[in-house]
Every structure is written in structure tokens, then in C-alpha cells.
């Protein structure tokens, strides 16, 4: 039951986007986000949508697969949109009883809906086309400059990659512990909130103890294999830039500058 989390999980296929260096994809995602917040007119958004559509097409990840895992977020989005629609003050377009919908409200709600969907789809493109390993590698190398201000980039990346390895193991373990307590007559499903939280104790205690034991074992195993932090380490799969990455950077640059320019051009400003 716990294993059905599919949001943004890696989608295995061959495509240009899959082959890109993770650093390109990381920077690309960040730049895409930045552009979304710079636009002042709908043309900018149109450019962004076209750009994203092209990337999705190139990535060969089926669009339906991409949005399938977004159901829970849709609810959140709807709430924000409705709130904006009703709360924003301005020129009334429609009025009934105490509810007034304004022109500004409609524009605001539409903008936010558009922005959130673009943000989510944009970031899921990255996780769908990059293996977790690659992603952490990319972060480690791409964010290396942060070491200057004492951010332990290597350690953070290592922690992320270990966490990713142990999540399925701990989920399976949770399942086993739940079954062991159910076999002792545990009731996890009825009663009020307080009762249910209390019923979780016999599951959480063994889970935490096991997690600590695993962490301890793992630390020993890593030390035994001469792990001593990021200094002096070589890489089995070092990240190397290829021509396609250079091309991607140029395209990114053109998109960023172009879309912001168009998106802030006063002649398109119809809001």
C-alpha cells in the first residue's frame, strides 16, 4: 500500500533529454522557474508553454504518465485558484449574494493556475528523465561552488543517495512490523485521532530502532571500505560535458533571455 508513490519517478526510455548532463537539467529547471515569475503578459506564458511542450516531446515520456501522479496536487491548486478568484478586489464582473468575482480575480486565478501547473510539470520533467544517482551526482558537482561558503555539498549528496537506497527497505520493514502487530491484535483503523496516534507507537518504536541499527551498520561498512568524505575520492562515473550539453545551454540561454524580453514587452501588456 505504501509502495504506490509514483510522483516524478524515473521513467526509463532513450531520449536526448535523458542523455543530457544532470547539471544542464538542474540549471534548466531553475531558469525555467525564474522566467515564470518574470512574465507580465500572456505572450511570455505562451512562449513558456511552447518551450515546455517541445521538451516533453523530446523526452519521450508520455504526457498522460506525467500528469497521472499529480492528482493530489490538483486539489491544492484548486483551493488556491478559488481563493484567489473570490478574494481579489477590483472591477466586479459577476456578483451574486455575497460573492463577487472581479476581472483582476479572474486574471490572478488563471495566472496562478498556469504557473503552478508549469512549475510542477517543469520539475517533474527533470525527475522523470534523470536517475536519482545522476541527480545527486549533478547536484554534487553543479553546486560545488557552495563549498566556498562551507556548505558540505558532497555529504548532502551522499546522504540523499543513501536515503533513496533505504526508502524501499524501510517501507518493506514498516509493512512487516505492521503485520507483526496486527497478528497481536493491534487495531490501527478504528477510534478517534488520539487513539490512532497511540496505536502507531508499537509500529514506530521498532521502526526507529531498526533504522538506527541500520545507520550504525552502514557507517561501519562505509568506514571499512575506506570512506572518509569527499576529499581525494575519484569517480567511477564522472560527469562529462558533451556537445549536446553545450547546445542545450545555448538553447536555455536563448529561451531565458528571449522569453523574459517578450514576457515583459509593454506592447503585449493587456492585464
Amino acid at each position, binding site marked *: 500500500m505504501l509502495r504506490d508513490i509514483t510522483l516524478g519517478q524515473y521513467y526509463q526510455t532513450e531520449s536526448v533529454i535523458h542523455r543530457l548532463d544532470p547539471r544542464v537539467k538542474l540549471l534548466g529547471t531553475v531558469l525555467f522557474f525564474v522566467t515564470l515569475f518574470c512574465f507580465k503578459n500572456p505572450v511570455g506564458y505562451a512562449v513558456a508553454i511552447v518551450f515546455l511542450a517541445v521538451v516533453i516531446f523530446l523526452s519521450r515520456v508520455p504526457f498522460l504518465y506525467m500528469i497521472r501522479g499529480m492528482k493530489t496536487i490538483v486539489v491544492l491548486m484548486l483551493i488556491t485558484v478559488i481563493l484567489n478568484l473570490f478574494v481579489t478586489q477590483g472591477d466586479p464582473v459577476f456578483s451574486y449574494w455575497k460573492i463577487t468575482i472581479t476581472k483582476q480575480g479572474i486574471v490572478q486565478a488563471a495566472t496562478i493556475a498556469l504557473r503552478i501547473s508549469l512549475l510542477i510539470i517543469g520539475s517533474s520533467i527533470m525527475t522523470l528523465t534523470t536517475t536519482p544517482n545522476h541527480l545527486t551526482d549533478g547536484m554534487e558537482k553543479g553546486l560545488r561552488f557552495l563549498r566556498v561558503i562551507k556548505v558540505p555539498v558532497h555529504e548532502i549528496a551522499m546522504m540523499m543517495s543513501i536515503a533513496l537506497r533505504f526508502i524501499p527497505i524501510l517501507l518493506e520493514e514498516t509493512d512487516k512490523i505492521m503485520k507483526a502487530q496486527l497478528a497481536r491484535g493491534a487495531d490501527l483503523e478504528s477510534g478517534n485521532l488520539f487513539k490512532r496516534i497511540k496505536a502507531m507507537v508499537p509500529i514506530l518504536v521498532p521502526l526507529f530502532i531498526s533504522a538506527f541499527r541500520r545507520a550504525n551498520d*552502514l557507517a561501519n*561498512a562505509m568506514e571499512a571500505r575506506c570512506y572518509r568524505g569527499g576529499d581525494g575520492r575519484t569517480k*567511477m562515473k564522472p560527469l562529462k560535458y558533451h556537445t549536446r550539453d553545450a547546445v542545450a545551454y545555448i538553447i536555455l540561454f536563448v529561451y531565458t533571455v528571449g522569453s523574459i524580453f517578450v514576457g515583459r514587452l509593454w506592447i503585449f501588456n493587456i492585464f
Partner: protein
Amino acid sequence: MEIVRAKDVVYEYIRRDDEGNIVGITKAVDHVNLGINKGDFVAILGHNGSGKSTLAKHFNAIFLPEEGTVWVDGMDTSDEEHLWDIRQSAGMVFQNPDNQIIAQVVEEDVGFGPENIGVPTEEIWKRVEESLKAVGMYEFRKYSPNKLSGGQKQRISIAGVLAMKPKCIVLDEPTAMLDPKGRKEVLEAVHELNKKEGVTVILITHYMEEVIDADKVFVMDGGQVVMQGTPKQVFSLVDELKELRLDVPQVTLLAYELKKRGINLPDGILTTEELVQNLRGI
């Protein structure tokens, strides 16, 4: 030539209560002296809590002796300067197959050790390939460790140690959590390494069947080495082993029972063929 030597090694666990007062001291390792020859297959037997795992962790400098000295390949493990050389010379495989695999892809995990000691990229690939082939796991190199059986995971861990080109490999109850099939797989892989690559093997275990083919057996109890010798010598002492919460292989036990019934058999019979031959001779 000795690869590992322990001299008067003592290691204590100190138990404290909530206020930090010492409530008890357990001598996990109590004045142990032993030497292990290069290229040998050595087994350390003992019941749970006999101190065998604590001793094993000294061979890799995870634990340092409180008294006495441990030398690995001529280097004193207390000498911090040689810490990484020691850990590279004496690789270690642990009990729980899940808690020692770091990467999410088999080949990357095998490459983890060489990465840590700064082996150049191309050489890492070569070593990963060789090591995976040596344990018969090469075709699984692109798999996620979560998709493998316990025995396969342990073989990956062995390959991970092997890729660091150790002289000696210490296996701390590597089969305790495996089923009989996995146990057999791991043992075969370890014997193969010992024979083909000439790697010294130190196997910590409480499964008697795994010890039969060893060159030398040390038996531990209460933190001390209480018996040592060839498997034949050690398994001749059925009553003594039972007192140490241990056992003997079933064939040996049957031969022992037959002797009790007045049948004339030699001590320390280890295989079915041996027993049948001896019985037919009567």
C-alpha cells in the same frame, strides 16, 4: 608468513547507567593471541556473545585494542598513519546484506571502495568487472540491489571488498541471515577467492558445516581462544564443543554416537564418504 597477528588483545564494553556511572564491564575480548598465515582459509567459531565478532572488527581497525596489539600485514592497527592502508589490506564483509550496500546499482556499489581510495576511473571499471566476475555476479551489474536475493547481495559485498585488492578478507557471520541456498552460494564464492586469487580468508561463523574445509579453526568462548587446530582435530572434541554451546556436523555426531555404542571408529569424521568407508571396513 603471517598476515594477521594478535598479541594479548583485550577489549572491554563498559555499561553505564542513566547517570553515567559504570555498572558493569564485559570483557568481550580477553587476552587473545593468534596468528593467521597468508593464503589460509581460517574459521573463527563461537556461540553468540563469545566475542568472535568483536575480535573480527579488530582486524579492520574498526575497533582498536585497549590492551595488546593487532598487526595487519605488518602494520600496527593503533597506528593512525596506516589506518587506510589497513582497511584496504583487510576488507570486511558484515552480517546484514542490506546494511552494507551503499549504491543503488550493483556496479556502482562495487566501485565505492576503489572510489574512496582514489583509484583512477578506468582502473575502477576494470576492477569492478574483475571482481563481479570473480563472484559470478557480472550479469547483474546493472541491477538494483533491492531486486537481488540475500546470497546475491552478500556476493556483491564480497566483490565490493575484492575491488579494493585486499590481501585478506574478514567475513563477520556473512551467512547468518541467509537461507541454505544463499549460504552455499556465498561459501562457494569465498572458497573460490581463496583458491584462485590466493586471498586470505577469515570466516566468522557458528555454522559447523561451513568450517569443514578450513585450513585452521579457532574456537572462542568468553572472549578467549579456547581451542585451535584443523577441523578434524577440533571436531574430535564433541563433548567439549557442546559445552561451548556449539555443535558438530551431523556426520561427526553420528560417528560419535556409534562410538558410544561400542563401534570402533576414528575421531573427527567429517564427511559421509569417510563414515561409509570406515563402517564398511569393520
